[in-house]
């Protein structure tokens, strides 16, 4: 069977088998939100003179006056028809909110992941090549510091140095300077949208705005990627085929890149999938510090306010992304090592 067909069949099967899990997540989050203490109706009926009547009105508006099983059925029906309910914190439909905010989170996460990869993979390889040396220890120290410092601390520190003291970075608020007009909405990724309309100045503004939060995020995930790269490179470099390659006198770069790295890349891919999914959720502090209008800070605000619909929507989104990322990693696997797709 051809590689493509195998991959597709595997992907399809994996996708179908993850549907029950998604459904479980949906029901579980729904029930979890309802057993959490805190009554959203009381919180939102917060006007200077709201009494019992206002609270009841909000409860009715949110559909919380019905018994829980009925609420669940109504919610499932809504989700089935593509609706996720209305957020009281922003006053918008959750689907609209997520549509607007997901590109912001994804753009940030992809950029951070790219930066992390560009930094961590060479660092890991370098550390593996010089295992046990001063460089190895220095890389390890760097990674430990990156992972130890919470993102809001490194974020605020970067803001302090690059914005407040040096004044090189633009003000750390959102995806675009308030005086720059946004590009026409195509993908929602500002860098792509600006590039599509050929607006160089806008692209540069968006790029500058993205750098600090992306670096903050990248610092945080540098460690796992670098460590895994180092470990699997070490294993590959110590293997028989590398020894053979060395013994027949192949050039060093060829041994490292073609023989060692290609074989060492699988574990890195695995960790990338996990890192990506956690980043999307763990973005929350970075999004807060940089007023980044992403999904994670949106969900946190909603959680604090016991605003059910956005939290449920967010968890469902995260679960779906997790499934999707796993699928993508699966596909990349079979490309990088065709043996894996043989069943």
């Amino acid at each position: 069977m051809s590689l493509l067909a195998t991959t597709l069949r595997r992907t399809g099967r994996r996708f179908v088998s993850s549907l029950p899990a998604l459904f479980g997540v949906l029901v579980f989050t729904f029930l979890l939100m309802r057993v959490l203490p805190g009554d959203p109706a009381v919180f939102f009926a917060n006007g200077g003179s709201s009494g019992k009547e206002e609270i009841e009105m909000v409860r009715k508006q949110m559909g919380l006056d019905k018994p829980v099983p009925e609420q669940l059925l109504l919610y499932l029906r809504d989700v089935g028809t593509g609706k996720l309910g209305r957020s009281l914190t922003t006053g918008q439909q959750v689907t609209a909110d997520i549509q607007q905010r997901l590109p912001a989170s994804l753009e940030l996460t992809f950029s951070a992941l790219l930066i992390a990869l560009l930094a961590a993979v060479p660092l890991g390889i370098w550390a593996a090549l010089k295992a046990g040396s001063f460089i190895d220890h220095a890389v390890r120290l760097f990674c430990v510091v990156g992972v130890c410092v919470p993102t809001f601390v490194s974020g605020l520190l970067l803001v302090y140095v690059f914005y407040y003291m040096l004044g090189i970075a633009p003000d750390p608020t959102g995806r675009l300077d308030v005086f720059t007009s946004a590009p026409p909405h195509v993908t929602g990724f500002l860098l792509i949208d600006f590039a599509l309309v050929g607006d160089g100045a806008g692209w540069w503004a968006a790029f500058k705005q993205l750098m600090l939060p992306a670096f903050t995020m990248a610092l945080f995930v540098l460690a796992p990627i670098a460590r895994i790269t180092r470990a699997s490179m070490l294993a590959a470099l110590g293997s028989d085929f590398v020894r053979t390659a060395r013994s027949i006198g192949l050039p060093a770069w060829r041994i490292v890149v073609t023989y060692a790295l290609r074989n060492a890349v699988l574990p890195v891919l695995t960790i990338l999938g996990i890192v990506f999914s956690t980043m999307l959720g763990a973005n929350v502090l970075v999004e807060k510090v940089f007023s980044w209008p992403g999904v994670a800070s949106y969900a946190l605000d909603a959680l604090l306010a016991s605003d059910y619909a956005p939290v449920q929507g967010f968890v469902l989104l995260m679960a779906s992304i997790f499934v999707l990322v796993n699928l993508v990693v699966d596909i990349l696997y079979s490309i990088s090592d065709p043996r894996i797709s043989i069943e």
Partner: protein
Amino acid sequence: MKTQRLPLFQACAIAIAAALCSAPASAQTRAETMRFVTGGTVNTLDPTMLGTTREAFTVGMSTYDRLVSFGKKKQGDNWVFDLDKIRGELAERWVVSPDGLKITFTLRKDAKFQDGTPVTADDVKWSLDRAVTAKQLGAAQLLTGSMTSADQFKVIDPATIEVTLPKPDRLALPNLATVYPIIINSKVAKSHATPDDPWAQAWLKEHTAGSGAYSVESFKPGEQLVLKRNEAWNRSADGKPAAFKRVIAQTIPEAATRANLVERGDADLAIDLQANDAASLATKGKVKVISTPQYNAVSFISFNTQMKPFDNVKVRQAIAYALPYDDMFKAALFGRGKPLFNATWKDGPPSADFPIAQPVKLDLAKAKALLAEAGMPNGFETTFSFNLGQANVAEPMAALIKESLAKIGIKVDIQKLPDAQMSTLINEKKAPFFTENIVAWLPSNDYFYRNFYTGNQRWNYSSLNDPKLVEIAEKARFEADPAKYAAYAKQLNAMAFELMPQIPIWQASQDAVMVPSLDGYVYQFHRQVDFRDVARK
């Protein structure tokens, strides 16, 4: 007739001048724009919607007019709103009938909605009807001014509307200046109404149809809102349009970032910084910090008077003498605000105002004696709850309270709760001992007592149930004679001290931090910035 030709060099001069002028045009838009940064979000364009955030109030103030608005007065060096000085906004003038039961408003002839149609008495009636009948926040507020039914509003002619009251009510007129009784373009609103939604609430949440100083240019909930000046609007105190061409209200959750932005001059104004940030910005002197004690707000330590052991007034009094007031004020607020403790009263309360400084101070011996009198010489255990949203202030406070009460044998367990959970606990009257803030838009003495010390609703934090206090507060409400009113008010103040359902501790300052070029800031009843007040010098 001979046409005069422009000499060449003059033409050149004009061309150069034009070129020079167009260069700083972009800089000029920056000067004509105000960038306001806040931690909260605007979640609706209709300020009457259930669940409206405080930030949305300020938008409603700018995009809509009301019949009347508050004047301003000096408090120390700062300007604050003046409850007693009402001026016309859409109303040119008004007449109160001698018996106080009818207020007749004459509308300004030049007032137009943003779509260019004139504001008529029909619009006013529709809007006020909506405020008292639709399911939104306005009804409960207007009730405090004796306006409860659409029958009370009558159109006399296209420029005249009459409001009838069941009893003369001192708060009827001020109520019309608050954020809820906005005057809406009824023709536009009605065209978006549906049988299920006769008051167009769904549409108005995302659109505005007002006559206010600004219109909405763009609105991204949770991110930012851009307002554009309505050039036809001339209802500021001096009869001019609003000073800024554009206002950008931006949500920036991180307080430290807001402080940095204002300090670097990238943002113009912020009001909700942390007390320590405001304090350090004030000492650096790069920005202007206007610190106004929130004279219509009070921070409390409250008891649940229906719960043991706080149903015993001696226990409440004991705690009132065991709180480390001075330390709390320093640790929690950096001394920024007006303390409401350490006073001495000679015979009864010295003033008819609310709140007034209480004659309590840290006196552990007295506290111990009172606790013994209450029959609990060895103290008891309790929990002290506060809202996570107020942790900056409440956390140091709670630690000091715990430490101090331990000295008289009361063991305190500190409970930090997310905002929604805390509201629920308070609403269900399950918190025994906690701290909260109250705000009254119309800070008259009886209004405070009626809203926060009587009834079974959430705002009666201490669940106080004292028939005599209810009776006096109700009498005070309709008392027209200022001397008699003051006597009632003093009596209420005295009762609150005797019963000690809550201990007022301070009025925290609202720190408005702004770039030095900004001027005209007024502390407003809704504790937000009224964009129409501020201008660049």
